[in-house]
């Protein structure tokens, strides 16, 4: 897996590179600005880009724009966006065009190396990685008549992990239950929320996120 990192804070950039190299992953370039990042994408043809949202010159959303441009130049490029804050509206916007090969994580998740590597591999393999914080915000802001209250506590846990982009196996490992049990929970959730059942993780993320978004409290 060939990886390019775009992060303007030198300490963090080298920290992430160090961590990934220690895991024998192939970090082909580390860059500190949108321009050098795009040049590196052209030159090194990476599989995955890890991109900070805030980068020079204005430190607002340069990272996002650079990631969009990189995907335009190199379709199929997986992008994992790292952010210092979680902004749910922002996540929604980012994921509006589709959740394939996309991740949106808080920066400190990198420190949970196992989970971070899972997310990285998932995104590289075509899946999705949504930060638990984004999912938590989506869940707390839904209307009271959204149907979520019909879910059991365990079903809500499963729903949250589905929304993060985890597959059945990963969910069963996280919750220490069998895959069969996870499968059963998911069928029940889809039935209670009136969603068309599917086992494919990527389709599921889109369906669940859209559902949560549509049931947002207005105003």
């Amino acid at each position, binding site marked *: 897996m060939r990886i390019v990192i775009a992060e303007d*804070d030198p300490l*963090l950039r080298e920290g992430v590179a*160090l961590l990934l190299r*220690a895991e024998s992953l192939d970090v082909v370039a580390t860059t500190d600005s949108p321009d050098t990042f795009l040049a590196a994408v052209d030159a090194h043809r990476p599989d995955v880009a890890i991109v900070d949202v805030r980068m020079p010159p204005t430190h607002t959303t340069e990272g996002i724009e650079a990631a969009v441009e990189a995907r335009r130049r190199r379709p199929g490029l997986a992008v994992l966006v790292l952010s210092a804050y979680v902004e749910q509206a922002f996540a929604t916007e980012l994921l509006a065009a589709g959740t394939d090969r996309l991740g949106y994580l808080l*920066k*400190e998740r*990198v*420190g949970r190396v196992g989970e971070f590597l899972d997310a990285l591999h998932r995104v590289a393999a075509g899946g999705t990685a949504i930060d638990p914080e984004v999912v938590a915000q989506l869940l707390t802001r839904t209307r009271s008549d959204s149907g979520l209250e019909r879910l059991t506590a365990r079903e809500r846990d499963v729903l949250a992990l589905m929304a993060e982009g985890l597959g059945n196996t990963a969910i069963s490992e996280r919750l220490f239950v069998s895959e069969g049990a996870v499968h059963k929970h998911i069928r029940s959730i889809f039935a209670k929320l009136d969603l068309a059942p599917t086992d494919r993780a990527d389709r599921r993320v889109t369906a669940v996120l859209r559902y949560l978004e549509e049931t947002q409290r207005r105003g």
Partner: protein
Amino acid sequence: MAARQRKPADTRRDDRQDGGQDDRHDGPRDGRRGVAARARGLFDAFEHLVGGLGTALLALAGLLWLVLVALTCVIGLGLLLAPTVPRVVRSVAERERGRLSRWGPEIPDLGPAPAGVRAALADPAVRRELCWLLVHATLGLFLGLAALTLVMDAVQDITYPLWWRALPVEDPAPTLVFWDVRDDADAWAVALLGVGLAVCFLVLGSGMARLQAWPGRRLLAPTADMDLSLRIAQLSATRAAALDAHAVELRRIERSLHDGAQNRLVAVTVLLGAARRALAQNRPGADDMLERAQETAEQALAELRTVVRSILPPVLADRGLADALAGLAANCGVPCRVDVDAPGRCAASIEATAYFVSAEALTNISRHSRARHATVTVRRESGRLSLRIEDDGVGGADERHGSGLTGMRSRIEAHDGRLTLTSPPGGPTTLDVELPCGS
């Protein structure tokens, strides 16, 4: 009359503010400075009197126009010209307001005069302007002419021994000299008279300037009710500035927290994660990573301290403005004397503003002024905190170049305070700040 509160004896403040000689000094060390300031005060008084003479001539012209219009009313022509009178009076009065605002409390402009004679006469501001016109065209004119004559005669007489021999014989004495000048002794007597005239101006000059300005300060300043509406407009503007300054400040804090401590802490978690991973898999390098994590955490703490200090310096909260400023002076690149006589505490936001303005000013002095000494003086009286920062550097500080001064001004005006910068090319630079701080 001094339009501003007179300051206690040891306050060295800008005496040009009221054309007087408030300037006194607190020791022989400041003697030469005191004399220089006194001379400057006298020069300013002369300048004000001559400036006043200018507006007095305008007032006289306005008064003559008024009389002319009144007389021609008899033949009807005056009735057509009458509406011009309030406009003429207002434009002369605005000129005087501008002049007085330049060296004393600001007198706001009132805008165009009411249209129509009846409306104008109903307006108390116009009636007060008419009174002022009468007084300034007579008393103001007299004082201005007297000062000019006094100073010119003094100069003429003092220098008389140098050039009296060049005069034709039939013109033996200058103005105000009632004896014939035949030899050097007589000429030196003329010079003595000149010295007498100069002393006269020395004693009377600033009083004359104040007396000349007094009708304007009394009659052209807004009355209580007008003052209130102007005050509301001004307060609305400064309140908006306060909110802006607040938002800018929050943005600055957010940015420095994000770029500093937050990024460091994220790096710490990344390094800790990598170290744990290495330990769990029995790979080498964990200790190295832990050491880097610790260093990074220490940097995060240092940056947090910097941010916290920039929000409200702990020394300011614990020890007060005097000690906080002494700390600033100790770290200043230019030798700096701090003289604080401000008993009691002001509101935290006022003290913080005074502190940051001083910090910014001292930074500017270290960077740009090439000064050898700087002085920070703080006084508190009648509900105002006055802060003065002086240096003996190259001057030429300009508010339009460099956002530091603009930032200072908005921060000060947000608290309804005032900032005055005097920085002629060649120096010295003086920054005067006044902040309201309750009583």
